[in-house]
Every structure is written in C-alpha cells, then in structure tokens.
C-alpha cells in the first residue's frame, strides 16, 4: 500500500483553491460526480480531465503524492481497458480477432469512456481532499446542516485514523517479535494470523472510548444548545461566484447531453 501519510493528503499551501469555502468544494465535487455519470463524449471527458489536472497541480501538491494517487486510479483503468474486450465484443471495425479476445473500435471507445469517467470523478475528490484540512471539512458539514454532535464524531474519527494505523503497526511488530508471521502464506492463512493483532487493537479502541467520553463530559459537552466557534468559515462574494459558475457549467453540460441546446 501507499505510504501511511496517504490517509491525510492535505497540502498546507496558500493556493487560491485552499481559500475557497469548503462547502463550495464539497458541492462541486458531488455535482461533478453526478454530471460525470451522464457525460459520454470522450473528447469532453478528456477536456474535463485535463482541466482538473491543471487545478490539482495548482494546489502545490508534491510529485510523490500526486503520482501515487494517479497511479492508484490508473491501475484500475488499465485493467478495465484490458478486460473489457472479453465481455464486450459487439461493433464492426474489429482491431484484432483472437477468438475470445476481440477488441472492436466501438467497444474500446465505450471502455475508454468508462475509464475516463472514473478518472475524472477521482480527480475531483482528490482536489477536495488536497485543499481542505479536516477541521474545515467538518465545519463545512456542520454548516451544511449536519448536527454538531455528528460533527464531533466525525472529527474524532478523522483524528484517530492515523493513531490506529500506528497502533496496528506497533502491535504487529510486538507480536512478530513473539513469533507471529503476518506476511507469509496464502490469503486465508494471512488473514487468520491477523487475529492476534486485532484483539489488542480493539481493546485499545475501547479504552479510547472510555477516555474520550470522560473528556467530553469534563469539557461541558452538551451543556448549551447552541455552539460558538473560535474560527468560523463564511461565504465571500468570490465563493458565491465560483458556486454559480460551477452550477452553470454543470447545467450546460447536462443540457448539451440531453439535447436541449440547439448545437447541431
């Protein structure tokens, strides 16, 4: 797997995309996902993909994080392109006929469209994760109407993911020093060998639950109905302009897709 740091891929950098309101970024990423399922023109998808890659690079991401995240998606899309001709053999101009494996031009266009669609969606969410830190993400959710106790749960979760990963690594090493082998054997055997690692990890999780609930009580959680914040997020004119333009572009794409625009 990729490096441990991949769980938190936020890039601390003062790029323009970082200062955009998190709500706008979340809504845009969700909108992009929906629109992508409707787009079917490879040219449009390629243009969209290139635009998103430019945006990604503009966030100041390091080459290592960018490369590993692109590679993760690329792996899947390459596999999809390779397997596709086995199951989709319709269409006329046949590229090469190997009995069961018969890639045709229309089928490969379809495969390419699906691959591009996957790539575009992944890039959109990657930009959101690169430019929004956890606390802003949670503030965005709460501002969008998510109750704040769920917000607290979510920020606890985001905070504890790296903790647990470190705990797992530590327990694994401790058990390995007692003779446990987790990286040899077949899949089932390796999975079974994880049990001695998981039991202490879960026990640590329960201890964390006890400690956290006491900490929440001692900090007067739930004493007041409304909550105030030290660092709040607010919409600026710039954010509203971005939202309007994103919605406009998305609706133009959709309208063109359904043939509501007199393009031809």
């Amino acid at each position, binding site marked *: 797997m990729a490096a441990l740091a991949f769980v938190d891929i936020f890039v601390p950098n003062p790029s323009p995309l970082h200062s955009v309101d998190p709500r706008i970024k979340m809504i845009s990423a969700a909108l992009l*996902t929906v629109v992508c399922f409707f787009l079917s023109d490879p040219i449009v998808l390629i243009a969209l993909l290139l635009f998103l890659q430019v945006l990604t690079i503009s966030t100041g991401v390091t080459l290592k994080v960018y490369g590993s995240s692109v590679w993760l998606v690329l792996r899947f899309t390459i596999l999809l392109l390779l397997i596709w001709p086995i*199951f989709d053999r*319709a269409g006329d101009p046949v590229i090469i006929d190997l009995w069961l494996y018969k890639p045709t031009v229309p089928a490969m266009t379809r495969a390419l469209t699906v691959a591009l669609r996957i790539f575009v969606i992944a890039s959109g969410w990657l930009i959101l994760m690169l430019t929004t830190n956890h606390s802003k993400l949670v503030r965005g959710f709460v501002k969008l109407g998510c109750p704040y106790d769920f917000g607290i749960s979510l920020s606890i979760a985001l905070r504890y993911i790296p903790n647990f990963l470190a705990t797992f690594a530590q327990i694994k090493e401790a058990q390995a020093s007692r003779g446990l082998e987790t990286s040899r054997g077949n899949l089932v055997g390796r999975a079974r060998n994880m049990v001695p690692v998981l039991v202490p990890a879960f026990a640590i999780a329960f201890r964390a639950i006890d400690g956290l609930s006491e900490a929440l009580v001692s900090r007067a*959680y739930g004493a007041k109905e409304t909550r105030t914040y030290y660092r709040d997020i607010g919409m600026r004119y710039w954010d509203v302009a971005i939202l309007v333009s994103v919605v406009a572009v998305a609706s133009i794409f959709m309208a063109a897709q359904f043939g509501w625009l007199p393009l031809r």
Partner: protein
Amino acid sequence: MAKRKLMSPKKVAIYGIFTALVAALTFIGFPITATRGYFNFGEVAIFFIAFMIGWKEAAVCGAIGAALIDMQIVAFFVPATLVAKSIEGWLSGSIIIAFKDKMKQTKARIIAFAAGGSLMVATYFLYEWLVLPLNLFNDPGISFYSGLGPALAELPFNILQAACCGAIAVMLTKGIERAYPRISSLRD
C-alpha cells in the same frame, strides 16, 4: 419542530472511535494483483460492531469509515461503499438482535455475517456491472452488460473477503468477550 436531543458523550465517542477503526482497518490489507482491489479488514470491524454494539452503529460507522478511505483511494466507489457497508451493518446487526435468545450466539453470528456479507458483495457487483458503465439516455447501443467483465473478475475476491472477515470477526468477538468483559456496557 421539536429539537433533537444531543447524543450522549459515550455515543459520540463510540461513533467516532469505531468510524476511525473501520477506516484504519480498511486501509491496512494487502493488494490483490489480479484486480484493482485490495483485500482489507474493514469488514471485521463492521461485523464486530454489529455483533457487539448494535445495528445503527454498524451501519453508520461502517459506511462513513470505509467511504473516508475510498474517497482518497478510489473515489468512484464511494456511492457503492456507502450503500453496501450500511446495509451490511444494518442487516447483520438486526439478525443478531432477532436471534438473540433463539439460538447459540456463534450460530446467529455466522448467519448474520453470511447474510450481511452477501448483500455487500451483491451491491458491489451490481454497482460495477450496472452503474459504473452507465451511459444514461444518450447511447442506446451501449447495453447494460458492458460492465460485466470487471464486475465478474472482482466477484470471487469480494466473496472471499466477506467470508474471511466474517470468520475473523466471529473469532475476534469471542476473544474480546473474554479479554474485555466490560464491553457489554457499550450496548444500548
């Protein structure tokens, strides 16, 4: 509108910690070279929560925890993950409650993970088959079968993952019940 009561501090901690646990377990695992996927242990935590805590926690923590990781690794699977893991947690948790006094716990747990796991596998299969290649309204030539290839390629690995994780979760639950008897206080 009547105001919703805030969750108790213990509930907040349970949701937070178990979501993190599901996410961390989803993240560790080994890659399967044959498909895009990697064998992960996220299901262990989901089944465990369903067995020991309750169906609501299993559904919420499972869906959000797994989606948090998917969002950064394979974003196009997020909708499927949200649906698959939440129905998995819900179903296995409900089965545990339904069979609570009717049969031995271990038997009920095996039934629960088999039912929940097969729902999860089916959701991913249908998503890869029907939704990912979905080409809505534009091109009638693209029939629905076009995504069957990758979906079929991944099916056995998903089944294996659900079965393995379910078995681990049953073993784990027994171990934890012995090692940490206070866990019964976390149930509602």
